[in-house]
């Protein structure tokens, strides 16, 4: 029986209690299922902005030249079977905290261009890619921001060659532990995330 690996990245600020509820709920649910889980508060780790140098493609292939936590998050991304990211929906996109980790993910793909469904994308570096779940948090319903957020996520999932992916936007109004557990349960079930013995 192979133990599955999951990574949970919270891209919110420490005071975001809604994000913490979801983060804790995912941790508990996955641990209960026997998954090995690495859960990170991205606001607490040091990840320098991507310099756009492309050395991770042409000088130190597959690895960023900066020796900070950005290397760890890339490694986590590559080695996980499931990646879960949590962020406040920021102008319809991701928070700067989450985005700094994503910007440093490009060592996990190749520089070479290829065509996927008529569009140019980068070739995959690895054969296996994690399932990808994204949870966006809004204070209340905002259809336009949700629409942009989901579009962004689907573009990312395509570029990251994710085998399966799902995004959910939740609202902070009346959100509690029960709400978090329900959201987590729904997403894990929808994405076929099972226990090691199932």
């Amino acid at each position, binding site marked *: 029986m192979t133990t599955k690996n999951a990574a949970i990245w919270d891209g919110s600020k420490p005071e975001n209690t809604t994000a913490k509820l979801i983060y804790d709920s995912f941790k508990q649910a996955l641990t209960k299922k026997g998954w090995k889980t690495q859960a990170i508060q991205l606001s607490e780790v040091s990840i320098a902005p991507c310099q756009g140098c492309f050395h991770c493609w042409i000088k130190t292939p597959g690895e960023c030249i900066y020796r900070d936590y950005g290397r760890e998050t890339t490694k986590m991304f590559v080695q996980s079977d499931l990646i879960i990211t949590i962020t406040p929906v920021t*102008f319809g996109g991701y928070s700067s905290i989450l985005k700094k980790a994503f910007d440093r993910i490009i060592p996990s793909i190749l520089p070479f261009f290829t065509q996927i469904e008529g569009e140019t994308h980068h070739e995959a570096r690895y054969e296996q890619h994690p399932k990808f779940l994204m949870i966006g948090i809004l204070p209340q319903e905002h259809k*336009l921001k949700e629409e942009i957020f989901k579009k*962004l996520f689907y573009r990312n999932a395509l570029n990251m060659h994710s085998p399966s992916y799902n995004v959910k936007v939740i609202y902070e109004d009346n959100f509690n532990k029960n709400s978090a557990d329900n959201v987590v349960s729904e997403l894990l079930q929808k994405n076929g995330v099972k226990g090691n013995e199932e």
Partner: protein
Amino acid sequence: MKSEKQKVLLLVGSPKKKQSASYALGTYLLEQLQRDRLQTETLHIYSFIYKNNTLEQLYQSFEDSDIIILSIPLYVDSIPSPVIQMMEYVAKKRVENREKIQQFMVLINCGFPEAFHNYTAIEICKCFSDECDFKWLGGFPLGGGPIVNGRTLTDVGRLGKNARKALKIIATSIGDAEPIPIEAKEIMTKSVIPARIYRFMGNIGWKRQAKEFGVKKKIKNRPY
């Protein structure tokens, strides 16, 4: 132009600063605008992110400006994290004071040949603009940005002709205080090189660069 003393701020959101396509596009636009005797300023966002608390200094220029031009590269289908950090800061400040009427636009370029990869990022920029109650002038996407890197938009000759034409239209509209016509975006998005040729030449370029660093045979390494 309604006022002689309008201030235009160019914010360059690339870590490559003056060597970037973002800088080349933004400065070309500023050059077209300067003919109307505007006061202009150029700032590099990354210069304000590495140090603590200097977004406040950037904001001092931001809040004094009548027109803000953001010129950025596309990172992972959207906006580089330091630029988002700046946007988060500005949005918070604008909640406190949105008396000044300010206009905002974005130029965005990507490494893929197709300009449409930039569209979601433009929507995010518009969302930011609306949240800050700026007057949105538009978002203008360019594919094949690396063609420009390190050179001016004039120096790249034929490869920059569509971008130059579009930026001139944008500059004229801003100068006349008129809406920027859709034509500017349509021209900018037109490829100067067919996508398949861009991919082919690009892939040769990656191999060449890897060879220069002595890692051509390791380019597909899987360290993790």
